[in-house]
């Protein structure tokens, strides 16, 4: 018997820490990502949320969907709030006022809260080296306020403040590469993930939580409402984002890059863009333009994995 390994694959515990009954839209892949992150971290965690969809849908007083301690203060300061909680914990443990239990500190926010308004607070917390995990749920626009563009909105996407019109074609800037910006802070762990790949996502979150010091996970979170797709297409679109190279899944451990989900030959970007209403106005020229950029960025990433 000792020569036999019993391998039970992919068994997850059933317990939920982010519970059903929240008020997210049908097909929300961001709520799914939050559920997976919460499941991955278990109950020994303190969560700090930025203002946004996930905060609004899970905490309407006097209700809550959180079975773990959860705090929300404002839009742009989740990283600062959690760095305060982490510092307080460290001080109290050292002074013998609280037992050391290896509690994980998770700060989370959407792409607006992370790449725009909370950028400074996040940079400060990363630089100071707090032992915490920041998760960005990136649905590529301010969905909570009605689909306005952020610096994380991709080139060409039509939003309510970057509308496709007769002169303009939607978002005119390239998506800010937040994961790379975090890598530039020289933190020990950075990863990208997508809720269409739940096991990859959970493994990364657990790895990030185990890493001493700051860790960052950037999760592409498909938003059927904002991306103009049917609710039952969210997982499929997330997979296409990865399979076309638009959103590669990788991790950077102490500066070393590794693509965690190799897709072989990339599918054409058009396969990803066409099903989405936010890109429906794009001409073949523009799609080719985007394809060039995606191919070049993917090649750059692959080159980094060989360093």
């Amino acid at each position: 018997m000792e020569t036999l390994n019993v391998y039970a694959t992919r068994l997850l515990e059933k317990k939920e820490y982010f519970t059903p009954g929240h008020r997210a839209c049908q097909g929300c892949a961001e709520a799914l990502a939050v559920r997976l992150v919460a499941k991955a971290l278990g109950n020994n965690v303190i969560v700090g949320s930025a203002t946004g969809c996930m905060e609004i849908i899970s905490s309407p007083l006097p209700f809550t969907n959180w079975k773990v301690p959860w705090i929300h203060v404002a839009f742009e300061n989740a990283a600062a709030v959690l760095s305060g909680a982490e510092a307080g914990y460290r001080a109290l443990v050292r002074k013998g006022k609280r037992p050391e239990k290896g509690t994980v500190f998770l700060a989370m926010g959407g792409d607006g809260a992370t790449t725009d308004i909370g950028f400074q607070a996040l940079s400060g917390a990363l630089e100071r080296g707090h032992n915490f995990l920041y998760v960005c749920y990136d649905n590529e626009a301010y969905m909570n306020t009605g689909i306005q563009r952020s610096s994380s909105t991709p080139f060409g996407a039509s939003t309510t403040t970057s509308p496709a019109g007769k002169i303009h074609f939607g978002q005119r800037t390239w998506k800010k590469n937040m994961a790379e910006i975090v890598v530039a802070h020289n933190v020990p762990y950075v990863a990208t993930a997508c809720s269409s790949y739940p096991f990859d996502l959970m493994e990364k979150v657990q790895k990030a939580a185990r890493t001493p010091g700051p860790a960052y996970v950037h999760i592409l979170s498909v938003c059927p409402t904002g991306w103009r797709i049917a609710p039952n297409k969210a997982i499929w679109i997330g997979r296409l984002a990865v399979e076309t190279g638009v959103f590669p899944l990788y991790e950077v451990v102490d500066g070393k890059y590794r693509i965690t989900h190799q897709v072989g030959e990339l599918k054409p970007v058009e396969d990803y863009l066409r099903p989405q209403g936010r890109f429906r106005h794009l001409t073949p020229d523009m799609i080719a333009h985007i394809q060039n950029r995606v191919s070049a960025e993917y090649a750059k990433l692959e080159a980094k994995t060989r360093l």
Partner: protein
Amino acid sequence: MGKRVGVEVSIAAADAVGMANVDVVAAYPITPQTHIVEHLSDLVANGKLDAEFIPVESEHSAMSVCCGSSALGARTFTCTSSQGLALMNEIVFIAASMRLPIVMILANRSLSGPLSIWNDHTDVMSVRDCGWIQVFTETGQEVFDHVMWAFRVAEDRQVSLPVIINMDGFILTHVIEPIEFWDPAMVKQYLPDFSPINVLNPDHPTTVGGFGMPGIYTEAKVAQNEALVKSKPHILKAWQELGAVTGRYYQPVETYKIDGAETVFLSMGSTGDTVAMAVDELRAQGKPVGLIKLRLWRPFPFEELRLAAKGAKRLIIIDRAVSYGGPGGPVASEIRSAFYGEKEMPVVTNFICGLAGRDVTPEDYIAIYSKSEKMAQGQVRQEDYVFYGVRE
């Protein structure tokens, strides 16, 4: 008894925070607050204070860090001035609504623009309605004592609200004064350990900072207001017990030569001393003049103020901030509200002076008195106010 030493007030203030055994300090440097946070980081660097000193990247994050650490159950302190307070404004309001007992020293300084680093009260008046307990101090000793008092009041389970200690920039922060330090036994006797009811703890999960639909928002705000109003007896008790420990008894409203005074000055902060010199001079001239020093700004001490001003025919309100296009200075506005509809309403004259560190001497207050007497004869209207000492 404590030891009396000559020391810069900022250093003493930081030492008081250290003696209070604070767990987390988060601060961003801004003149004239800097000496306080520098000395606190010194105390930490030299092992004299076991605390996390978080040198944040902005005041907005300073207050955010404070919210996180206070919610976790750590004794938390920050310190700022002027633009720093303006930048953290959003979170200052939220800290009170979350009932987080953070203590902040505000080294009062004028708000930009034009840019100025000097002292007045325009910064604190911008957060008048932020929901924090707010006190003013006149001397270095008062600052030291009020650090202990602030932690004691804020962390009182019946209160659980943040406290701002106002301390005039430069005039207090950068002067050397004789200050009686508390000895550790006094601190131990006066200030119990921080033991909040709810903290962020996986053993007892709580949701903090949920959002309020219209059906619950009003009730949340009423509860918050009630908490601030009802903090007063606890504030008074903490002052009473501070007196028992130190021999110094503080009041929400303090008076000077008030007996028989027909005209009464009202000032806040370090100006009180200068006004008192003017009162001495006017009394020597046989004029029935007195002084009220408003220590407690929030919750506003209506009863004590009315009692202190009983019998006064005229009040001269010294304001060190402007309410542009409004009814004069913010302090005068509050005082008029406190007396409106009372049987004996004093005539209120309002002088805005000492903006951005402009010196106001005892002679100036005597001149203000003369001007006020003339104005009062003409029965000033609610919205009448004077910018005193404007260069022509």
